[in-house]
């Protein structure tokens, strides 16, 4: 059995998926991200972005600038909506 080379474990995207998307005309990190959801999973691109960058440079023959990396936004890790919005009374710590 031939295995796939996985680029993005969060969204199960293979190297071939990325190459196919590039050949369909998705030729920058932002477009690939929107098309394939790379970098949108729980790891937020820690594993995949540099791998996608390498594939992109190889397939297009063009350097990918770091300025085109996806923007980092809070939260950098998954946080439940409950934690962000839960209504609880009483517990308020203040350190002075």
């Amino acid at each position, binding site marked *: 059995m031939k*295995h796939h080379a996985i680029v993005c474990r969060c969204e199960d995207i293979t190297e071939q998926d990325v190459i196919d998307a590039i050949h369909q005309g998705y030729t920058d990190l932002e477009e690939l991200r929107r098309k394939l959801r790379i970098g949108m999973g729980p790891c937020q691109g820690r594993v995949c972005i540099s791998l996608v960058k390498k594939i992109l440079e190889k397939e297009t023959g063009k350097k990918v600038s770091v300025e085109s990396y996806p923007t*980092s936004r809070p*939260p*950098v890790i998954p*946080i439940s909506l*409950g*934690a*962000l919005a839960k209504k609880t009374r009483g*517990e308020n710590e203040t350190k002075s």
Partner: protein
Amino acid sequence: MEVNGIPNVRTCIAPLLEGVAVRMQDRLASWPQNNTDNAFVSTVQDIDILIVGAGPAGMEAALQAATFGASVLLVDENQRVGGQLIKQTHKFFGSKEEKAGTRGISIAKDLEDQLCDDRFKDKIDVLLDATVFGFYEDDTEDRYTFGVISRKEYKSRLIKVVCRSVIFTVGAMENMLLFPGNDLPGVYGAGAVQTLMNVYGVKPGERVLMVGAGNVGLIVGYQLLQAGIKVDRVVEAAPTIGGYHVHAAKLRRCSVPIYTRHSIKEVFGADCVKGAVVVELDDHWNPIQGSEEIVTCDTVCLAVGLTPSTRLLEQIGVDMALVPEAGGYIALHDERMQTSVPRVYVAGDSSGIEEASTAMIEGKIAGAMAAKQLGYQQEKAQTAYEGFLKELKRLRAGPFGAKPRDAKQRIQRLWRKRP
């Protein structure tokens, strides 16, 4: 984008409703006042210095800052302090001041004891099992606000931290390799192998193919042998061994071959690793057809470099640059370890990949200088800083320090060239 007062909304997937207020948000967000009124948010106010990451750099930064009188909140994702030190069963190099001859695990214990020392009781707070997840703009000038999520006892708790200064000692991420089967059970990063073996006492497998002959690959290779695990070989894509000769020699004396100009082509096995195919590379790093060789193993350990963690620094908007010698995209900083944003410091691997011994000194520098900047014992802090700077230069002076020295010099040059 900000939608109805809620920052960092990905408007591309947000529903468009009648009367919705959408505002441009230029990187920085304000803490959503109206939305937190009802939410469970505890606040930690008036901290002098928030230190993100309690590895070697973060612990030393906390100790220094507290020594000069600053109050410190030290936050770490893990359930204990120490960072990578708690996995490092080998002895350190360098001079006596840098704890040469001491094992990483002992250094971690020593620093942990110091953090718990009575004299720092009112100065250092350690928050474990918690992650700093985002940077928010504060209403007050000269204060920074961060969102922290605590996961203690499997309960998520949101904490708003307001501080005057912040030191990022967040470490690095392991690099991944692309090859068929790279997600099969049995393919590990070297950090995971060390955690299993040295922290939990669990063998990752019985027969290992090590990919990468830098210090991490060589040291973990030897630790695998110590744990009674067979290391079939080490493959290294570069034409030379990247790590120290002494680590390579230890493996060679135990008859573990190191193949330079070799890489992993694929792994095979139905539902877990049963073996791997390695291949020789030509001068252009391309596989040489017909040079494939099958390696029987149940574990593939990837030790192919580290990339500095910079996502929180990117959120703050510090000046960054691509410095390959330092491991990638890094925050530019001066000799005091301060970034382009006032009172925002960086130290350790997140300021450029190096070693625990230099990370500790960088941490001391950042801790002392952050305290000084806030007005604590300025003369004493300055004297301490000058001492640490000399230590750092001495440690990087040898032939082994060439690469980090080049990287840091390049960072200094880029720092000075900033507009």
